[in-house]
Every structure is written in C-alpha cells, then in structure tokens.
C-alpha cells in the first residue's frame, strides 16, 4: 500500500480531533453541572480547559497545513483534511460556549439560582449526545449511517430549540412578575442560549461529515433533509 505514512498521519489527526471533541463534551457537561451546583471552582476549571481546547485547535491546524504542504492531497484525502479543519474550528467555538457558561456562573456570584435547573442540564445532555453522534458519523464515513443519524440529530436539535424557547418564556414570566430578578434571569437566558448555539454547531459538524462522505457541499440542514428525503 502506497502512502502508508500519510494514512498514519491522517489517523493521528483524526485521533486528535476525537480527543478535542471529548474535551468539548466534558467542558459543556462540567459547565452546566457547575452552574446547577453553583460551583465556582468547577467553572474556573472549565475556563482553564477551554485554553487547552484552543491549543489543540492550533495544533490540528498546523498539522493540517503541514499535510497539505507535504502531500498535496486530492479527492477524499483533501476532503478529509478540510473537514478536520472545519470541525476543529466548530469544536473550538463550542468550547467557548462552555467557557461562557463558566463565566456566567462566576459573574452570578454566590447568590442562589432563581429556580432549580432542570431544562438547562437536559439541553446540555442532548447537545453532547448530538456532538457524539456527529463525530461518530465523521469517524465512520459511511453514507448509510448518515441518513438515519442525520435525521436523529436534526430532531434532537429541534428539541434543544424548544427547550430554549421554553426556558426563555419561563424566565420572562418570572421577570414580568418581579423585575428585581431580571439580572439573574438574563444570566440563565445566556446560559441557555449558549447551549442552543452549541447544539447548532453539532449540526454544523454533521454537515461537514456529510461533505466528507458524499463529496457534496451544502448549506444548512434543509438541504441535507432534501438529500435524505431523495
């Protein structure tokens, strides 16, 4: 088999991406748990974790540029490297959302929460599940799995959107009844919004994986849905 070294390097690159993805999952789950438990130390650790996630993104980018320079990749090799670059960029932003929740928790100070968090942790769990599924599609690179899982991920994204809307409605209701709670409510809205964006980025990863597997680029899940339907 020719290009064994190149194949090895691509596998290492993918392993780095999987590690980065694991760190991002960890960051989101920890940030939500810290918010729920009002654990400032834990939030601080999430912020530190984001620095490590940023470093991995830089490493992956350098690795990709090196491979492009050395190997002049073409066809599926080129798509694989481009996809890795794009996904690592998505993961970096997702890490920022987790970090954002950590900062929100710190900004909220020692005050107790407006109410016990139920929907926000659920949003976090669903979003992490979406990320796992999207990364799994990328790693498997199989068209058959893509169709079913893509539909599932889109449904989960809708669920996250609905939960976000529900949270915002509830919080606005609280503020309407007691304007002194506006600041605390806004913090929680930010947290919810961050998770909703995190989930959106998971669907972006799904789209990147779609490009890798099919060779067709597209914009947005509507187009993906059309492809799945056809």
């Amino acid at each position, binding site marked *: *088999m*020719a*290009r064994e070294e*190149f194949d090895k390097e691509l596998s290492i690159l993918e392993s780095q991406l999987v590690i980065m993805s694991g760190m991002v999952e960890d960051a989101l789950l920890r940030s939500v748990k810290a918010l729920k438990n009002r654990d400032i130390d834990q939030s601080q650790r999430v912020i530190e974790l984001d620095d490590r996630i940023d470093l991995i993104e830089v490493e992956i980018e350098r690795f990709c540029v090196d491979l492009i320079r050395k190997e*002049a*990749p*073409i*066809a*599926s*090799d*080129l*798509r694989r490297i481009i996809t890795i670059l794009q996904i690592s960029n998505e993961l970096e932003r997702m890490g920022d959302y987790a970090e954002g929740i950590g900062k929100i928790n710190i900004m909220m100070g020692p005050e107790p929460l407006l109410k016990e968090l139920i929907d926000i942790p659920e949003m976090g769990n669903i979003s992490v599940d979406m990320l796992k599924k999207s990364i799994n599609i990328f790693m498997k690179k199989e068209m058959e799995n893509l169709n079913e899982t893509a539909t599932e991920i889109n449904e989960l994204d809708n669920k996250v959107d609905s939960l976000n809307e529900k949270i915002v409605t509830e919080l606005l209701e609280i503020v309407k009844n007691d304007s002194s709670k506006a600041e605390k409510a806004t913090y929680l809205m930010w947290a919810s919004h961050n998770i909703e964006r995190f989930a959106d980025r998971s669907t972006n990863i799904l789209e990147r994986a779609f490009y890798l597997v*099919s*060779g*067709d680029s597209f914009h947005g899940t509507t187009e993906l849905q059309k492809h799945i339907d056809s």
Partner: protein
Amino acid sequence: MSTDNNQIKSKEISEEKIIDFTNPIIEINNLSVKYGNSLAIENVTFSVPEKKVIALIGPSGCGKSTLIRCINRMNDLIPNAKVTGNVLFEDQNIYDNNVDATEIRYKIGMVFQKPNPFPKSIYDNVAFGPRVNGLNVNLDEVVENSLRKAALWDEVKDRLNDSGLDISGGQQQRLCIARTLAVNPEIILMDEPASALDPISTQSIENLIKEISKDVTIIIVTHNMQQAARISDYALVMMSGEERIGRLIEYGENKQVFDNPKDERTEAYVTGRIG
C-alpha cells in the same frame, strides 16, 4: 470550466463512462490497439469537446500514450501496431484509407515529453510547417504570431537566427508548441510536456496551455495530479488490470474526477494509493 458550448447530455458517467457532448471535435468509438499479438488498449470510447483541455491520466503502462498516439495516427509509425475501432474527426474516420495521415498530423499536432526542436534556427523551426505545407502566408507574421501565442516572442525576438537548441529546456518546449501552432492545428496532443521541466518552466507551459485552449483543443497526458487538476476542464482516467490491457474507467469534469471520483480505482489512483 464552462460547458456552455458543450452541453453534457448524459450524466450517467459511472455506468456509461461516456460524456456525450453535442458538438465534439473528436469521437472515439471502440478503439483497441494491438502491438503484435499483445492487446494494449481495448474498447475505448469517448468524445472530446472543442476548445477544452482534457487530461489523460492513469498509472504507467495503462495505455495513455498509446491512446493519444491514435488520435493523430502516430501509431502508424510503430511496426506491428494495429488499430481497430474509429476516430472521427471532421465527420471522417481518420483511419479510412483515403485519409492522408500527414495532413491529419498538421491538424492534430503533437508535443512530446522531451523538447525536440530541429537543429535549425528558432525562426526556421517555427516556419518549418508552413514551408513544408507550401502555405501561402507571410512567414514573418506566422513566426511572430506563433511565438507570441507560445509566450516566447519577448524572450527570443532578438535572436531568431540562433539555434533552437541554444535556448533553455522550457523555452525549447514552448518553441515546439509554437512550431505546432504555426500550422493552425485544431487539436494539440501533449504527452507529459512539462515532466522534464523545472517548476518555473512548468508554470509557463501550464499558463500557455490555458491560454491556447481558447482557440485549440488540448489533450494532455500527465502523471502530475495537481497539474491535471489545475489545467484540465475534463479528465479521462485509464487503468489496466493484471492482464495489462488499458481501459477507460472514468471520464468526467475536472471537479468531479479530482474532488469526488465515482470509481474507487480513480480515487485510489489520484490519491496516490495505486500506480
């Protein structure tokens, strides 16, 4: 990579391996070539759109050079070579008995891997074709225009009487292209024209190919995938199996072949995993 003038009728490339152009300049049907008893290429069928660059790619020994040599009957010069099938050019099979092979070679010129200028002056190299053909043209004009089209004029205009062998390899190759252009060909076949050149000369040959393809159809054999991806409008992939018989396995637009090949053998070849 506009296909405005060459609308693709059939998209079923993977099954048919044929792109059906409305006004192809060349149509090749069931072309097979034997050297003695040995079959070199078998049942190759494809058509070529006008004024486009077609890259012919595939591993060594898959029959690319054999195929390209069929397009202007260069295989006539190889003893024991037997061509079956047909190559339609200007509504006629160029292998018909009444076709003059020499005339075909002026209309379908060829540039080889190694620059092969004649041991004559730069001027005489370019003027050779029109003179031999007895063309009633202003030779000075033809020489200047051909050298300009070949992006060589500015470099040699003050030394037209120097030997064609006294210029650099890259310049010699452009001189050979100018020589081919001097007889107004409709197609130029190029067999790895830049493989013996340095990167700068390669770049100028590639620029030149893109430029002259506005007027002339180019069919180029290259082993350089990046070069094929850079300069071609369409790519045709050949491959031979254990029996060493070359066959066309994929033919498609540049973007399709180099971004997302349909045939897994093409994918393996363009990504450097076979060949």
